[in-house]
């Protein structure tokens, strides 16, 4: 304890020798890739500017590694000041058991109900009429990122949608280019599949399967088509021996792979590598097939703390996160869409603008993180990860998918 107090003292005295009332707030998150780290630096800067101090608690290795640690600490009675979760159902039970802080006052002061768009974001922060999280960005999964260079090398035109991409697969292969880059972590295969469901199958199908959990639809011919498409993707993804999503993005970035289906956070990697949308790479929201994006994303949750000063700092941080200036700075770096419609993103690049336009037009669907539980999501990940890496048949996979949806909650 003494050691900790001492280090804390040291950190304060070194970082902010002038601010006597600076409160340290430890913030945990899993933003560790290049683009992510740059974005989180913006948040920290904005928070430090309020006279408090952001103590960074990054945990590498994606949310799957980080969340267990965060949850253990919150339930173990040693909570951090604030923590990232994907907004949706990940923190539901923590809230229900009274471990998280009610932010309703802050929200009312900041008029969150009016400024946050789409409203579904705030809805998933709301439990029993109280607001428990501050959404920070909107992420959508349905993006196909293409390397213009790769297609030039293969001698085919840059595809305009997923179907054209599939058709161009053989040409890419011939040119010695990996057609589709896909990292080995299970959530990536899972995300790709869900992107196919909504972009190839349409919003109706997506809602019936994931929102209504209709097992009949899941077993039906429309879903069978999705599994066929996933099978094509599986063929195209064969041979991309990478683990992390940004390594896969890097394959596209360097022209070693033709394309990747990945959420809009991939944008941040292109930006950091100084690639230009349109000339170096192409992005196709909705996989070029339809104009709907899911509005998942990240949110900050604030554990209930005993320390009054820290609690105050939590309020400041929550307000800072939703603040228009922070929203612009953060989301430009992160490649995601701001959570409010009233900010000016003139400096955003073409891809981001496309995304913002779609969301502004109302082409939105709720993300799977909000619709199904972490448990079902994990089972889906297991299934997809197996599907994409073995040769289990389309039929078997669909059968297992159906029983999974039947039991989903």
């Amino acid at each position, binding site marked *: 304890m003494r050691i900790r107090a001492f280090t804390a003292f040291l950190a304060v005295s070194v970082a902010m020798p002038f601010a006597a009332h600076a409160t340290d707030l430890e913030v945990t998150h899993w933003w560790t890739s290049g683009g992510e780290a740059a974005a989180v630096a913006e948040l920290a800067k904005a928070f430090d500017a309020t006279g408090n101090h952001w103590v960074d608690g990054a945990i590498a290795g994606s949310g799957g590694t980080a969340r267990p640690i965060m949850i253990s600490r919150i339930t173990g009675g040693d909570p951090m000041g604030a923590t990232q979760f994907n907004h949706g159902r*990940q923190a539901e*039970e923590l809230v229900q058991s009274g471990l998280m802080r009610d932010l309703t006052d802050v929200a009312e002061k900041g008029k969150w109900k009016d400024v946050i768009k789409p409203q579904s974001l705030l809805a998933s922060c709301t439990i029993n009429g109280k607001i428990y999280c501050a959404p920070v960005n909107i992420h959508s999964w349905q993006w196909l990122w293409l390397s213009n260079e790769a297609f030039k090398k293969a001698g085919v035109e840059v595809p305009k949608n997923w179907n054209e991409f599939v058709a161009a697969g053989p040409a890419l292969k011939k040119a010695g280019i990996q057609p589709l880059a896909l990292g080995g*972590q299970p959530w990536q295969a899972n995300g790709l599949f869900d992107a196919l469901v909504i972009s190839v199958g349409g919003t109706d199908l997506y809602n019936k399967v994931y929102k209504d959990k209709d097992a009949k639809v899941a077993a039906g011919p429309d879903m069978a088509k999705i599994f066929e498409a996933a099978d094509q993707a599986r063929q195209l993804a064969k041979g991309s021996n990478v683990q992390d999503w940004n390594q896969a993005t890097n394959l596209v970035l360097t022209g070693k792979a033709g394309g990747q289906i990945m959420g809009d956070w991939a944008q941040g990697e292109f930006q950091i590598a100084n690639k230009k949308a349109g000339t170096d790479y192409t992005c196709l929201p909705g996989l070029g097939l339809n104009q709907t994006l899911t509005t998942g994303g990240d949110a900050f949750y604030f554990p209930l703390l005993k320390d009054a000063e820290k609690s105050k700092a939590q309020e400041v941080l929550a307000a800072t996160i939703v603040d228009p200036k922070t929203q612009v700075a953060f989301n430009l770096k992160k490649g995601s869409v701001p959570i409010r419609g009233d900010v000016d993103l003139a400096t955003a690049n073409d891809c981001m603008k496309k995304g913002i336009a779609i969301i502004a037009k109302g082409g939105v669907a709720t993300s799977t993180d909000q619709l199904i539980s*972490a*448990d079902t999501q*994990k089972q889906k990940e297991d299934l997809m990860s*197996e599907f994409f*890496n*073995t040769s289990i048949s389309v039929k078997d996979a669909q059968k297992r998918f159906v029983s999974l949806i039947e*039991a989903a909650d």
Partner: protein
Amino acid sequence: MAKSVAPGRPNQFLRNLNSKIACIPMMLTALVIFLGGTVWTVIYSFTNSKLLPRATFVGFDQYERLWAASRWIISIQNLAIYGVLCLIFSLLIGFVLAALMDQKIRFENTFRTIFLYPFALSFIVTGLVWQWVLNPEYGVQGVVRSLGWESFTFDPLYTPEIVIYGILIAGLWQGTGLVMCLMLAGLRGIDEDIWKAARVDGIPMWKTYIFIVIPMMRPVFITTLVLIASGIVKLYDLVVAQTSGGPGNASEVPAKYVYDYMFQAQNLGQGFAASTMMLLTVAIIVVPWAYLEFGGRKRV
């Protein structure tokens, strides 16, 4: 308490009092953590606890789901393959190396250090290094190919069928040095006279090892078995560092299933059910043995 129950023998409780006091941490660990934690886990495996434990009992639902999950089946198979092979090869390699080292060789210290040093490294480090050595582009495969053998394929970490052997190679690398050390210590403990007698009788060396020396080394083998076997059941870090369970689910292991479902899927009940199955397996194998070995000779 002791006095009121058995007033005639007050010494029973006070006897070895200091020893009992000294053993309090051990007793607490055994009772509260290992026994208590286990019982707690088993009880909650019959509930539908999600992120937080809650006592809503659902019978064997979690177990039914567990055994219907293909990932769990794969995990069990992998652990079986890994366990059996790891046990055999650890003992075999460890013993052979120890036997060779016991031939009054030169540079014994050097060899021993070389064989033992990987044990100083964590599984995380071991996994990373072997992931790198087995990397198809830069590692062994790439090098052999660049030497002119273009069709050479040695790519265990990206081939679902054999990925578990890739993990085995790394696991053996890390652990066999310690086994060798234990075996060597055991061999050194054997009386020189026995060797002399065997030599005088003209018994071939290999026969002496198998029929005379190995049976005499029973205690060493037991300590070694405890070490290897407990390591096998706990196999987790190595897999996480080397393959993260991939490609697909091909190198998943039970401990990882437990962890993933407890914390990532936020389904404690499922994770507890899986860990109860692991405990059951361990119990079936270990408890009778532990009882015989450590608890069953009270009258001696």
